[in-house]
C-alpha cells in the first residue's frame, strides 16, 4: 500500500515536537486516502529511527556519517532514496527552520508539487486539498497538487502531538550521500546570559503598532512594571532595535505561558502566536478588527492602544 511519509526532524538526539504532530497528520491523511502512515529518519545510526518507531508503524532509516548533522543536501538525497525505493504518495515535513530549508529541495528532487505552511488537509475524490495561511494570517487559501506525488509542510500546532507506545518496524534504506555543500561548524545560543522573561506571571508585549522605540519604552515598560510583570516584544520590534532580542516572544524567540499576556499593537502572525498561545489569559489591543490576534485572545479591545493604555495605567 502507498505510504504517507513523515520526514523526522531531530536535534541533539531528540525528535522535534513538529515531527510528533506529523505522525498524527500522517495517520489521518493516510486513513482518508487509503494509504499507510510511515516515517523516514536520517542519522549516523538507527537511534532516531528507533525513537520515531514509538509513534508510527513503519520507519525507513538512512544511516550515513554525512547525516550526523542536518544539511539540506544530505536530507534531500536521503529523502529521495526512500521515496524512490518505496511506494510513497505524499511527504510531510514540518514548517520549521530545518523544514523550510529542505522541503522544497525534496519536492524538486522527486519532481512533485509542494504546498507549504499548511494547517489542514481535506481529502476530496481521493486527492488532498491543503488549507494554508496567507496575507499574514488574514486570508486562508486552498491548494492542490497537479503531480502524482505531493510534498506538504505543516505549521506548528496543526495536529496534536502523537502519543508514544507503539513498536514500529524499522528497515534500512541505502543511499549514497555525496557532495554536501554546506558545512556545519557549530550551533550557538544567541541569548545566553540575557534576561529570561519566560518565568514571568504577567507579560506586556508590544508590536509594530507602537510606532517607534520611544513610544515602546514609554508605553510598554511602565504598564509591565505596574502589573508586576515583564515586558516583551514581537519580532518587528526587536528587528528595529527598540528592545533586546531576549525579550522576543515567538518561534524564533521565547515560548512563554504567563497567567496574563497583554498583546499591544501586535497583529498575531503565526510565528508570534507559537510563542504565547499557551498563556492562561490573553488580552489584545489593536486598531485593526481583522488582526488575527483577536482569534486567539480571551479579551479584545478594538482601539488605538495609545488611547487605551493611559486609562489602564490610571485604573490599575
Amino acid at each position, binding site marked *: 500500500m502507498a505510504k504517507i511519509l513523515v520526514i523526522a526532524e531531530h536535534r541533539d538526539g531528540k525528535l522535534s515536537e513538529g515531527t510528533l504532530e506529523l505522525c498524527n497528520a500522517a495517520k489521518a491523511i493516510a486513513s482518508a486516502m487509503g494509504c499507510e502512515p510511515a516515517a523516514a529518519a536520517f542519522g549516523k545510526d538507527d537511534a532516531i529511527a528507533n525513537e520515531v518507531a514509538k509513534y508510527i508503524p513503519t520507519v525507513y532509516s538512512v544511516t550515513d556519517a554525512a547525516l550526523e548533522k542536518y544539511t539540506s543536501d544530505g536530507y534531500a538525497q536521503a529523502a529521495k532514496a526512500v521515496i524512490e525505493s518505496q511506494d510513497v504518495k505524499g511527504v510531510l515535513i514540518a514548517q520549521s527552520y530545518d523544514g523550510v530549508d529542505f522541503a*522544497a529541495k525534496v519536492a524538486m528532487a522527486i519532481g512533485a508539487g509542494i504546498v507549504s505552511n499548511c494547517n489542514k488537509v481535506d481529502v476530496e475524490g481521493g486527492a488532498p486539498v491543503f488549507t494554508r*495561511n496567507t*496575507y*499574514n494570517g488574514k486570508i486562508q487559501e*486552498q491548494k492542490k497538487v497537479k503531480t502524482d506525488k505531493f510534498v506538504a509542510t505543516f505549521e506548528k500546532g496543526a495536529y496534536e502531538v502523537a502519543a508514544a507506545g507503539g513498536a514500529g518496524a524499522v528497515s534500512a534504506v541505502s543511499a549514497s550521500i555525496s557532495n554536501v555543500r*554546506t558545512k556545519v561548524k557549530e550551533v550557538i545560543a544567541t541569548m545566553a546570559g540575557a534576561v529570561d522573561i519566560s518565568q514571568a506571571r504577567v507579560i506586556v508585549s508590544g508590536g509594530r503598532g507602537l510606532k517607534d522605540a520611544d513610544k515602546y519604552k514609554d508605553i510598554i515598560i511602565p504598564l509591565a512594571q505596574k502589573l508586576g510583570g515583564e515586558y516583551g516584544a514581537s519580532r518587528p520590534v526587536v528587528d528595529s532595535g527598540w528592545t533586546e*532580542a531576549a525579550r522576543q516572544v515567538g518561534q524564533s524567540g521565547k*515560548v512563554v505561558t504567563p497567567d496574563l499576556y497583554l498583546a499591544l499593537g501586535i497583529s498575531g502572525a503565526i510565528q508570534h502566536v507559537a510563542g504565547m498561545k499557551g498563556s492562561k489569559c490573553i488580552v489584545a489591543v489593536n486598531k485593526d478588527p481583522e488582526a488575527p490576534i483577536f*482569534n486567539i485572545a480571551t479579551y479584545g479591545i478594538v482601539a488605538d492602544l495609545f488611547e487605551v493604555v493611559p486609562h489602564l495605567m490610571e485604573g490599575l
Partner: protein
Amino acid sequence: MKIVVCLKQVPDMESNFKIIDGSKIDESQVAFKINDFDNYAVEAALQLKEKNGGEVIIVSAGPDRAAKDIRQAFAMGADWGIQINDPAVQAGDNFVIAQNLQKAIEGIGGVDLVLTGVQAEDDQAAITGVMLADLLGLPHCTNVVKLEVNGANMVVNRELEGGLNEVLELSAPAVLSIQSGINEPRYPTLPGIMKAKKKQLDAKKAADLGAGTESKTEFVKMFFPVSETKAEIIQGDPATAAKTLIEKLKNEAKVI
C-alpha cells in the same frame, strides 16, 4: 561581486482586504510595497557591494505596478534590474516563478550571489528561494541572520528555534534567504530617487527567457479564516473599555 536580489512587490498587510469571487484580492483597495524581507536582502546586497565592489541587480516577477518598487530598490542603490512581466508567470505557482528567476539569472551570467527574502508576506510559502537554488544547481542557506563573505568563502548564521543559530560554511555562488533584522534597511535619498528614474529596467516574458509556465500546484480558493475561539470584544470608548477590562481581569479571569 555580482549580486542578484530577487524582489517581490506585495500588498501592505495592514490593508482592509476584500476577496473577489473567492479567487483574488481586490487590488483597488490596497497599497503595494516591497516585501519586508526583501528589503533586508537589498540592504545586505548593498553592504556587500560597498565592501567588495561590484553590482547589485534586482530581478522581480510582477505586473506593471511592480516597477514602482523595483525603482525603490534602485533608489536605495541597486544598479539595474529585470522585470518579468508576463500574465502567464503571474498566474503560475512558486515553481513557475523559480524557473523564470533561474532563467533570468542565468541570462545575466557570472552571478556570485543570489539573495532573497525568507518568504513573501502575501503567500507565506518560503519555498521559491530553495527551488531557485536547486534549479541553478547552487547550494543554499535559508533564514540567514548573519553573513560574512571572504572571497568565495562564506560563513553564515542560520536562525533556528528558540534563539539558537547554526553557523555554517558554504562557497559562492550560492542562494541565501535573508531574515528580517539582519541589518537596518536604508531609506532612499533624494539624489538616489532621481538617479533611480534613469536606471536600466529590462522587461522580459517567459518566452524571452526560455522559461516554462506550467505549475505543479493548483489554486482552489481563498477565504477569510473562521476562528472557533474569537475573543470577547470589550465595547465602549477607551476609558470604559479599559475599566471593564480591569474588572474582568480581576473578577472573571482572576489573573491580576
